[in-house]
C-alpha cells in the first residue's frame, strides 16, 4: 500500500500544527465560531448533536494493521471506545473534545493518516473498490489511480473553494462495487480494443435531495491524460456551478441543466487547453512509482482448497457461502467481515474489535484491511486453508455474522441519534429490521437484498440506490419513514421509486415483511429481489403494502 514520502509527511504535520494553532485561537477567543467553522470543516471536524465529531480519511478504504491499531487507540484514549465506519469508507469518532483534537491529529499523522478532505467544499477523500487488487474481474488495481487523484486533488488551490463538495470514485472491474454512477465523477478503468487500459469518466451523478445518475462524458481517456481531463471537468464546474443556492450547487445540477452533450463539449475545449499547458500530464515514471506501492503481495503458489470437511462445522458453511468471495489468485479468498450483527449498529466497531481485526489482518491477509462503502471490513488476501481458523476467531469476537449482501446487511447513516442534519433516526430502524429478520436461514432463502436507510434527504445512507430504500422524515416533530423500491448502486444503477405515504416507526418492520413476502410470492427461480421488481414493477408491491391502509 502507499507510504508517505517526506513531502506527504511534512504537509500533514504542518497541517496538524496549523489547525492546532487555529483551535488555540478559537479557545482563547481570537476566532469567532463563524471564523472557525470553515477552518474546522477543512480538517474534518463537525459539531453534531451531542459533541464534536471527527471524520478520519481512509483513502480508497485501505488501512494497514498499524493504522487500525491507532484508530483503536484513539477510540480508547480520546473517545468512547468505538468508531463508526461510513458509507464513504471513512471512520467517524463521535465524542472528541475540541481541546483534544490536536493530539488526535498528531496521533493520526504518526501513522500517515489525517482528516483532510473529509468535509467542506473540496474534492473529498477518493473512494474505490474494496476488492481492489483481489477481484478476479479487474483490469488493474484502481487504487493506483485513486492515489494519483488524491495527490493531485489534495490542497489543489483551484479546487479548495468549489461551489459544493465533490466526490470521486474509481473502479477497474466490470462489477461495480463503488456506486460509481452516483458520484460527482466516477472513473471506470477498462481494457481498450488496443489492449491499453483507458478511462471512462462519468460525470454528474449524485444522491441527496436531487438523485441523478451520472452521464458518460469522457470515453476512453488515455492514462497520461486522466488528470488533465479531470482538471477540465473541475474547471467547467468551478466556472459554471451555482454558488447562489446550496441545493443547486452540485455538478449534477449543472450537467442536468446544460445537458450531457454541452458538458462534454465544454470539457473537451477546456481539456485541450489543460493538455496544451502540459502541467498535469502524468509522466510514465510517476505512474510507475505510484504503481509500485500497489504491487500484489507475495502470494504463494497454492491449489484451490477442498473445504468440504470444514463446511461440516455448523455455521462455517453459511459464512463461507455469503462472506467469502473468489480471489484472482488460486488458493486465496476475499473475506468480508460483517459489521452488522443482529440488532447491532451498522458500521460501528469497538476498539477491541478494531485491534482484533488488525491482528487478524497481520496473521491472515498481508497486514491490510479494507473498509467498504457498505460499512463492512474486508480482508482481501486470505489463504483458503486459513478460512476455518479465521472464521473461529471472528466468531469469538462477534464478527462472523454470515449476512453479507442479505437483508440484514443494512447501510444506515448515523441519523438523528448523532447527526445535526438528520430528521429521523436510522439506526433504530436498521436494528428493528435486522432483529425481525434475525433468522439467517430465512435471510438466505430471501437472497440478495440491499436495504439502505437515510435519516434525511441528504441520503448518506444511500436510500436512493437501495433495492429497498428507507428515508426518515419529520412530520411535526414525529419520525416517519418513506419507502422506495428498485434502486441499485451497481453497474446497472437505478434510482428507487417511492411506494406511497410514509409509515410510522413501529410500522416499518411489518411493511418490510410485506414487501419481502410479496417478492417471495412473485419471484421466478433464480431471481433476486431486484430482478423480480424489475420484471413486475412497483404496482404489486404497492397494492399489497397499502391494502390494509
Amino acid at each position, binding site marked *: 500500500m502507499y507510504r508517505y514520502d517526506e513531502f506527504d509527511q511534512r504537509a500533514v504535520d504542518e497541517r496538524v500544527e496549523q489547525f492546532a494553532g487555529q483551535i488555540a485561537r478559537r479557545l482563547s477567543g481570537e476566532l469567532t465560531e463563524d471564523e472557525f467553522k470553515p477552518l474546522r470543516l477543512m480538517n474534518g471536524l463537525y459539531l453534531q*448533536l451531542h459533541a*464534536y465529531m471527527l471524520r478520519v480519511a481512509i483513502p480508497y478504504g485501505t488501512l494497514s494493521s498499524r493504522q487500525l491499531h491507532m484508530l483503536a487507540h484513539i477510540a480508547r484514549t480520546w473517545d*468512547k471506545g468505538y468508531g463508526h465506519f461510513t458509507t464513504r469508507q471513512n471512520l467517524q469518532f463521535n*465524542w472528541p473534545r*475540541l*481541546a483534544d483534537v490536536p493530539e488526535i491529529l498528531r496521533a493520526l499523522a504518526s501513522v500517515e493518516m489525517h482528516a483532510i478532505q473529509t468535509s467542506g467544499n473540496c474534492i473529498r477523500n477518493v473512494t474505490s473498490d474494496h476488492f481492489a487488487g483481489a477481484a478476479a474481474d479487474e483490469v488493474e488495481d484502481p487504487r493506483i489511480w485513486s492515489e494519483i487523484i488524491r495527490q493531485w486533488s489534495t490542497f489543489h488551490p483551484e479546487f479548495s473553494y468549489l461551489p459544493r463538495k465533490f466526490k470521486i470514485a474509481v473502479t477497474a472491474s466490470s462489477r461495480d462495487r463503488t456506486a460509481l454512477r452516483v458520484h460527482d465523477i466516477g472513473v471506470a478503468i477498462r481494457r481498450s480494443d488496443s489492449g491499453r487500459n483507458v478511462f471512462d469518466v462519468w460525470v454528474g451523478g449524485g444522491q441527496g435531495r436531487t438523485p441523478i445518475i451520472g452521464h458518460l462524458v469522457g470515453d476512453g481517456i488515455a492514462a497520461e491524460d486522466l488528470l488533465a481531463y479531470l482538471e477540465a471537468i473541475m474547471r467547467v464546474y468551478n466556472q459554471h456551478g451555482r454558488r447562489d443556492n446550496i441545493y443547486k450547487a452540485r455538478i449534477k445540477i449543472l450537467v442536468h441543466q446544460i445537458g450531457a452533450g454541452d458538458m462534454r463539449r465544454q470539457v473537451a475545449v477546456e481539456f485541450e487547453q489543460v493538455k496544451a499547458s502540459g502541467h498535469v500530464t502524468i509522466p510514465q515514471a510517476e505512474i510507475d512509482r505510484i504503481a509500485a506501492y500497489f504491487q500484489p503481495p507475495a502470494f504463494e503458489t497454492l491449489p484451490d482448497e477442498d473445504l468440504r470437511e470444514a463446511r461440516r462445522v455448523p455455521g462455517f458453511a453459511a459464512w463461507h457461502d455469503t462472506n467469502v468471495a473468489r480471489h484472482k489468485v488460486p488458493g486465496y479468498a476475499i473475506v468480508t467481515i460483517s459489521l452488522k450483527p443482529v440488532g447491532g449498529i451498522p458500521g460501528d466497531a469497538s476498539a477491541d474489535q478494531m485491534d482484533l481485526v488488525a491482528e487478524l489482518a497481520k496473521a491472515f491477509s498481508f497486514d491490510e484491511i479494507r473498509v467498504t462503502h457498505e460499512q463492512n471490513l474486508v480482508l482481501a488476501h486470505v489463504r483458503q486453508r486459513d478460512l476455518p481458523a479465521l472464521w473461529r476467531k471472528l466468531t469469538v469476537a462477534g464478527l462472523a455474522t454470515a449476512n453479507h449482501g442479505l437483508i440484514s446487511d443494512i447501510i444506515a447513516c448515523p441519523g438523528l*441519534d448523532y447527526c445535526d442534519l438528520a430528521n429521523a*433516526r436510522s439506526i433504530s430502524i436498521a436494528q428493528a429490521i435486522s432483529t425481525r429478520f434475525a433468522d439467517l436461514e430465512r435471510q438466505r432463502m430471501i437472497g440478495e437484498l440491499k436495504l439502505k436507510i437515510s435519516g434525511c434527504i441528504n441520503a448518506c445512507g444511500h436510500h436512493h440506490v437501495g433495492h429497498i430504500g428507507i428515508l426518515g422524515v419529520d412530520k411535526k*416533530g414525529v419520525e416517519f419513514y418513506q419507502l422506495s423500491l428498485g434502486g441499485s448502486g451497481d453497474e446497472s444503477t437505478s434510482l428507487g421509486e417511492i411506494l406511497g405515504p410514509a409509515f410510522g416507526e413501529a410500522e416499518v418492520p411489518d411493511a418490510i415483511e410485506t414487501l419481502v413476502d410479496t417478492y417471495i410470492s412473485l419471484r421466478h427461480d433464480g431471481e433476486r429481489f431486484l430482478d423480480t421488481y424489475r420484471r413486475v414493477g412497483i404496482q404489486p408491491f404497492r397494492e399489497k403494502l397499502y391494502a390494509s391502509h
Partner: protein
Amino acid sequence: MLQVLTANRLIDGTVVYLAPSGAWVESLSKARVFESKPDAETALAVGTEAERRQLIVHAYLFEVLQAHDDLRPVRQREIIRAAGPSVRRDLGKQAAA
C-alpha cells in the same frame, strides 16, 4: 409555549442549558423555563453574550412540556440531545443518570 435555551459547550461540544442562575448546566431538569416571548428574546441575548465569551456555540430556544416536576422536549431531536443516543443507552447524559 414553554421554551428552554440550549447550546453546545465550546471546549467539548456537550449539550448545555441556561439555568436560572445564569450558569450553563448539563441537565435539562435544571434549565430555566421561559414562558413569554420577551423573556425568550432576553434569553437569546444571554446566549449571544455567552458565545462571545467563548463558553458555548450556537444558542437557540426549543419547546418543552412541563410534566410533573420534569421537563420534556416536544421534538425528538431535543429528546435525544437531552439524553444521548437512543441506540446507546450507555452513552451521553443518560449514562450518568
